[in-house]
């Protein structure tokens, strides 16, 4: 039980915690509850649009579905490596803990890169939002362009849901990076930001989206400055909760957005 604890320099004696666990884990569960309502609202908006629109399009070809399946495989694998990282942290095996965390981050990064490529292809082919600039030198497919024109709800919900999820995966990668490497991760993050910014053409939404990494770098620098501390196994476990949650959300988005909109 979690009662005899030092806080604020003075030992304080507490009532047993209601859930018999440490505060940070409870805090993360609470965050996940609120985040599931945030995603719930987006899924509600998606369902609302889909139900109220006659003739909802099902335009995804096998290439999109195959790509999304590979992405899903990466994400599921990352959950496995995350479990192994938590196990290593419990066994106090610092080296393999770091390795498994990095493996999880790599799988997550593969997911984001594949998803980003998918986005870029769809935008180039005309399944786009009105404010995304056209891709120069690319012929839009009449089919996708028609979907975007007749049912604007389709690209709207697609980009919102998957974009919000992609943001969560990206933040998760950063979170794991901080847990694994702490301060040393900040220069890596800044390098990633520069690469993402310079490597994407100016018409790509990722060109501006990359600045999320810069903002996050500033925020975590502030947090690490306020709270310089050594991370222990509980931090790996709590980060794992977040990571599995983001995977779980994808398990809703993948069938709802991709499979139910596949061209059969």
């Amino acid at each position, binding site marked *: 039980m*979690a009662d005899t604890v030092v806080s*604020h320099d003075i030992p304080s004696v*507490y*009532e047993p915690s209601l859930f018999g666990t440490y*505060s940070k884990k*409870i805090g993360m569960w609470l965050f996940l509850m609120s985040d599931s309502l945030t995603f719930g*609202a987006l899924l509600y908006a998606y369902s609302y649009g889909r139900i109220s629109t006659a003739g909802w399009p099902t335009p995804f070809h096998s290439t999109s579905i195959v790509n999304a399946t590979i992405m899903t495989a990466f994400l599921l694998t990352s959950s496995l490596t995350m479990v192994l990282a938590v196990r290593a942290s419990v066994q106090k095996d610092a080296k393999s803990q770091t390795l498994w965390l990095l493996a999880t981050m790599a799988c997550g990064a593969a997911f984001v890169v594949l998803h980003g490529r998918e986005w870029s292809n769809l935008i180039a082919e005309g399944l786009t939002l009105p404010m995304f600039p056209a891709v120069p030198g690319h012929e839009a497919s009449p089919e996708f362009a028609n979907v975007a024109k007749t049912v604007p*709800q389709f690209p*709207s919900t697609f980009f919102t849901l998957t974009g919000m999820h992609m943001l969560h995966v990206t933040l998760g990668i950063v979170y794991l990076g901080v847990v694994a490497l702490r301060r040393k991760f900040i220069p890596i993050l800044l390098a990633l930001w520069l690469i993402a910014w310079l490597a994407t053409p100016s018409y790509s939404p990722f060109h501006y989206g990359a600045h999320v990494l810069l903002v996050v770098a500033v925020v975590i620098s502030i947090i690490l400055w306020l709270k310089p501390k050594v991370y222990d196994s*509980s931090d790996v476990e709590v980060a794992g909760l977040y990571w599995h949650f983001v995977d779980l959300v994808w398990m809703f988005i993948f069938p709802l957005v991709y499979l139910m909109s596949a061209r059969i």
Partner: protein
Amino acid sequence: MTTHEPHAHAAPQGFLRKYIFSLDHKIIGIQYFFLALVAVFAGMFLSLLMRIHLVWPNASLPFFGQIKPETYLSLLTMHGTIMVFFVLTTAPQGGFGNYFLPIQIGAPDMAFPVLNMLSFWTTFLGFLVLLAAFFVTGGAPLHGWTGYAPLSALPSAGPGEGLGADLWIISIAIFCIGALMGALNFITTTLDMRAKGMTLMRMPLTCWAWFITAILGLLAFGVLLSAGILLLMDRNLGTSFFVPLGTVNGVLTGHKGGSPLLWQHLFWFFGHPEVYIAILPAMGLCSQLLSVFSRKPIFGYKAMVYAIMAIGFLGFMVWGHHMFMSGMSPYSAFAFSIMTMGIGVPSAIKTFNWLGTLWRGRIRFSSPMLFAIGFVSLFVVGGISGPFLAQPVLDIYLHETYFVIAHFHLIMGVASIFGIFAATYYWFPKMFGRMMNETLGKAHFWLTFVGAYAIFMPMHYYGMAGGLRRYSQGTEVAWINSLAPIQKFISIAAFVTIASQFIFLINLLWSMKKGEKAADNPWEATTLEWTTATPPPHDNFGGVTPVVHNGPYEYSVPGAPRDFVMQTDAPVTAKH
């Protein structure tokens, strides 16, 4: 063997870390309190301009000139947003909750001090972004605090709907993030950091109210955040979540397929719990004060706890009663209507218990008690019109009139504000080490109490007679114009009430410097904040670990040496 999050931080040195970027929940609570104080005077000033414009639409004011109808709508929007988010949500929960929740449960600090600091500064940033909307091209938005689409979703829809509306949405989104961090912290602290002996059923009702309020915030603000993101996308990325096919000023909008109703559902799913986020802390505080100043145990402690829970739970089931006007299916309206009237049951339990607490008590009419009794009065009067509005047939007539304005101002606005006033008078000695002036406090109470009724009672009649809300002036419409004397009376009552708030401000600022020194337990109350020094040391209890033996409301216990038994005193044996 698990451990608590180690959050040891020594008492900070240096002005910046001690008073500005402090991790101490007490400093953060005071920061929230002053943020709300600035916000409430800003919001009140906007309402002053509105009241002037409603009665003298052609008046030319110094600095502002003549207020245009669209400016009136901007004032209305900003008044509502500032008051709901940065006063009613910020002061009772962020301010007093932050300061007193940890002390009342016997904890040295919040569970996550860094998160606590971040949530204050996030909220502060949100306030600055909101104020910035006044100063951009086009000015502040027109769409009301509810931000109904399509008005809020189309930059071309009106003068303030350009950059001003974007800033408004961003400010709300920032506020949501701050509120979520705060809510998470409150819940974890309550679950995990209670001192030995402080079982859940020995917590003061204030703590219960803050706890349930935090749960409501945790579940509601995430949805508003999503809604805000979608609205921002509609405005800036050309999506069509909330905008159907249509034209604005004869020009096609370029949107199609969206639904304004989607916004209403998402907004009110947050918006109704928000009403309880504003009022529940005041309910908890009022329960506390009625017991302290009647020198009697609270009547029906457990019923009070379950009633708070029931109100919180039902609060998530009734958002549709804000949307009876939308043409929803009568079956849906019926369900929402029944649920809404169901909230009357726990509310009546609370009112009954408050009266039961007062009954045959030895009442001490100090200023905090006056405001607590005022709260009960306003809660009953403001609440009684709720069951009227809960009926779709009546609501369809009343919803667009001042009747609704009167209803929610009394119950969500003035009643909550009375809770904030009561809390200020009650806890000021602990927070600043000095007493507030009683004479000024009583003058403030009577002027505000009478003023609030003088403003909002006639407003019910104005609404029932057909006076429409959101209209900047009624002079062009004969039947509204015939009601003009009521508007004039309301405005004059409002000027007097607004002026009397400066008594409070002067009392507050003067007492901080010059007030009579306060004892550690000036009200002879039982809860843990009164066991510690005034103001409390950095770790709240000066190295002592509080151990709780009694419930929070042991007043006039037979056989006890004093007429109150502190929670840390030896256990009481006598049962009452």
